[in-house]
């Protein structure tokens, strides 16, 4: 058994009283306590204080506390739902305003050529075809569209050199 000095013993008393020391270390603490009056007194007083803490009257929850806590949680949930709803509407509003503003700006600054490009975009036709495609058969349709697309469109869409990989 390793003999402990006063400082080591005091440090270990916390774990000793909590029953968290190894058998060997517990024996070492006991051994020191049996030989050292100062540590013995300190330990005894620690235990008295712990007993006092145990016996001290504690504030308990009132009868209404449970209902109050549950009601507070309900209110909180309702507020959170409302907040979520407001956030969603605000987001949708911002998006709609952005789209509207974009459309207005486009209308103001777009040239006739730009309008022609938009109106003749093949991709819009393709999207319309995709929308009408049989469910589950979209991939076949995409392949068909890709084959039918003019080379320059493919190059534009896939970037330079992509055509070679095809």
């Amino acid at each position: 058994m390793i003999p402990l000095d006063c400082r080591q013993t005091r440090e270990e008393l916390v774990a000793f009283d909590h029953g968290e020391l190894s058998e060997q270390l517990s024996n070492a603490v006991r051994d020191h306590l049996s030989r050292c009056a100062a540590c013995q007194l300190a330990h005894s007083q620690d235990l008295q204080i712990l007993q006092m803490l145990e016996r001290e009257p504690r504030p308990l929850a009132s009868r209404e506390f449970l209902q109050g806590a549950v009601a507070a949680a309900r209110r909180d949930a309702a507020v959170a739902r409302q907040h979520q709803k407001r956030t969603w509407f605000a987001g949708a509003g911002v998006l709609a305003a952005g789209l509207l503003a974009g459309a207005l700006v486009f209308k103001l600054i777009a040239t006739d050529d730009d309008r022609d490009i938009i109106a003749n975009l093949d991709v819009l036709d393709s999207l319309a075809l995709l929308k009408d495609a049989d469910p589950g058969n979209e991939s076949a349709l995409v392949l068909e569209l890709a084959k039918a697309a003019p080379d320059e469109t493919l190059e534009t869409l896939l970037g330079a050199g992509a055509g070679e990989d095809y």
Partner: protein
Amino acid sequence: MLDLQAGDLSAFERIVEEYQDFVHHLVYRFTGRREGVEDLAQEVFLRIYRARDRYRPEARFRTWLFRIAYNLCINTTKSRRLRRTGSLDTPIGGDAALGDVIENPDVEAPLVVLERNEVFGRLREALSTLPPQQRAAMTLYQYRAMSLREIADVMSTSEKAVKSLLARARENLREKMRPYLGASGVQESADAAENF
């Protein structure tokens, strides 16, 4: 807790019911005062409710709950800079030793009650002067079912730091409560250890 995560509010009710006294005591001890305990305890449960989706079953629920209470109380203590005011907690005065108060059966009952109240008053005063972390460590340590490791988890610190906090807290309390403590011997100390 898993039921609560699934949206079952009655699960929350069960949690409050089971832990309400516990949380009241923790809050009282953590903050070192009785005033406002109920409000803070309610805030603890509200935070549990709000954080329900963040709870992971790997963590022990009790540790998680205590951590929420601990963080709330530490922050509240810091922000309010709690100061003790003259109140019911204020000790009456006197110099009876605890051993006499608790163990002497010949003392008349009202006197025992008075002296005991005085000792508890001193104890509360001594506790309230401890740094918040020492006070919290002492409070959690009191729950024998909590290991030092679990206390460390609640306080987001190491086991070694907890031991050190507790050793200093005990030393401080011993110093402040000295007039009320009996000079017991080894046998008495061993008996007390068994009772603790």
